[in-house]
C-alpha cells in the first residue's frame, strides 16, 4: 500500500475535522510533502463534506437579520466614500496573476514530456484544461469584484454628503416618481420603486438634457425594472457634467436604447431643483 493509498483513506475524515490528533498529525506531515494525489483528493473531500450542509433542515433567517446586515454594510460603504473611487481603481488593477503553482505545474509537465510523446500529448491536454480553468476562474473573480465595486459605488453615491438629490416627476397619475442621486465625483444612481416595466423587451433610458440652447439630449444607460417594479441604475461615468445639465429625463425605448429619444420623456427632474443629500 503506497503512502497515498494509506493516507487517502483518512482524507474524508480530515476534511470533516473528525480525525484524532495522532492521525491528523501524521496526515498533515504527509500533506506537507505536497503529494499531488492526496492534495487533489483532499480538495474534493472538502467539497463532499460541504454537501452535508444540505442535510440540515431548511430554515429561513428573519427579515430583521437582512435589514440589520444591509444597514451595517451601507454604513461601512458610506465611510469609504472618500476613498471609494481610488479603491475601485486599485481593486481593478489588482487582478490576480496566474498562481505560481500553476506555472510550476506547467514547467514540471514540460520536463516530463521530453521522455515520452504519449505523455507529452496527455500533459498538453491537461495544461490546456488547467489554462481554461484558470481563465474561467479569473473571469469569475473579475465578475465578483466588478459586482462588489458597483455595489460599493452605489452605496457611496447614496451616502456622499457632496451628492445632490433630484426627484424625477411624471405627469402620468398612475406612475410613481423616480429619484436620482448625482455625485460630481462618483456618478449618478437612478432608482425607482413600483415602476411598471415597459412592454416586451423595451427598456427605460436615462438622458441628460444640456443647458446649452439647441443641444440634443445626451443618451445614457438603460434599465428594466424587476418583476416588483424596483430598479437601481448606476451610471459610473455620466456623459455630461451636472453644471452643464439642465435636467435628467427618462424615456421608454427599444431594447439596447436609442441615440436620440423616440418617445416623449415620461419622467423629468431639473438640476435647478436638486437638493444636497445632507
Amino acid at each position, binding site marked *: 500500500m503506497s503512502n497515498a493509498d494509506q493516507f487517502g483513506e483518512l482524507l474524508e475524515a480530515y476534511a470533516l475535522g*473528525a480525525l484524532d490528533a495522532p492521525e491528523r498529525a501524521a496526515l498533515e506531515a504527509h500533506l506537507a510533502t505536497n503529494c499531488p494525489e492526496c492534495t487533489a483528493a483532499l480538495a*474534493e473531500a472538502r*467539497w463532499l463534506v460541504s454537501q*452535508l450542509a444540505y442535510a440540515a*433542515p431548511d430554515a429561513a433567517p*428573519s427579515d430583521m437579520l*437582512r435589514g440589520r446586515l444591509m444597514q451595517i*454594510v451601507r454604513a461601512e460603504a458610506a465611510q469609504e466614500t472618500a476613498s471609494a473611487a481610488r479603491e475601485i481603481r486599485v481593486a481593478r488593477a489588482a487582478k490576480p496573476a496566474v498562481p505560481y503553482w500553476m506555472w510550476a505545474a506547467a514547467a514540471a509537465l514540460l520536463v516530463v514530456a521530453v521522455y515520452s510523446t504519449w505523455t507529452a500529448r496527455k500533459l498538453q491536454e491537461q495544461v490546456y484544461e488547467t489554462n481554461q480553468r484558470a481563465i474561467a476562474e479569473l473571469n469569475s473573480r473579475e465578475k465578483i469584484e466588478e459586482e462588489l465595486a458597483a455595489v460599493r459605488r452605489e452605496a457611496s453615491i447614496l451616502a456622499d454628503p457632496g451628492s445632490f438629490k433630484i426627484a424625477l416627476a411624471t405627469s402620468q397619475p398612475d406612475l410613481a416618481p423616480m429619484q436620482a442621486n448625482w455625485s460630481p465625483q462618483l456618478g449618478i444612481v437612478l432608482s425607482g420603486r413600483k415602476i411598471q416595466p415597459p412592454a416586451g423587451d423595451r427598456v427605460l433610458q436615462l438622458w441628460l438634457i444640456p443647458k446649452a440652447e439647441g443641444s440634443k439630449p445626451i443618451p445614457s444607460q438603460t434599465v428594466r425594472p424587476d418583476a416588483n417594479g424596483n430598479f437601481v441604475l448606476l451610471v459610473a461615468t455620466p456623459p455630461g457634467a451636472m453644471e452643464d445639465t439642465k435636467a435628467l429625463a427618462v424615456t421608454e425605448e427599444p431594447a439596447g436604447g436609442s441615440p436620440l429619444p423616440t418617445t416623449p420623456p415620461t419622467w423629468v427632474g431639473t438640476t435647478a431643483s436638486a437638493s444636497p443629500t445632507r
Partner: protein
Amino acid sequence: MHAFEQLYDRHCRIVFGLVLRIVQQAGTAEEVVQDVFLQLWRNAAQYDTSRGPFLPWLLTMARNRALDNLRLKSERQRRREDQTEELPGISAAPEFEKQLDEKRRAEQVRALMTSLQPQQKRALELAYFEGLSHTEIAAVLKEPLGTVKSWIRNGLLRLREGLQQQATTT
C-alpha cells in the same frame, strides 16, 4: 448594494439552515450568519477563486464559525483551538457536480441520510454538525472506534456515489 443583496438572498437559507442546525438557537444562528456575511463583505478579497467554488467555501466558513461558537461553550475549546482553520482550505468539485441543481442536491443528501442505519447517520451528524472526533463519537455511541471510522467514511463515499448517480440521470 444590489450584488451583495443578491448574494445574500441566494445563499442565506442554506447558510442559516446549516448554522441553526449546529448552534440550535435562532438568535445565536442569526448572529453567526451576520458575522459570516459581514466577513464576506469586509474581506471580499479573501475569497480567491483558486480556493475552489464559492458556495462550498462559504458553507465551510459558516460551519467553522458555528462550531467555534459551540466550542466557546464547551470543554472541547482548548483541544480544538489549533484545529480550526482561519479560512477554508481549497476545495474542488468533481466534474459531475455541474449537472446538479440545488433542489436535487438537497433531495439526494437528505435521501441518503434517511437511508443510513440510525447509528451511522448519527455518527455522521455528530461529526459534521457537532464537530466531534472519531474517538468522541465512539464514546457517545458506545461503538468500537473502527466501526465509527468506517461508518463515516462509507457514509461520505455513498453520498458521493449518490450525487454522481443523480447527476448522470439528470
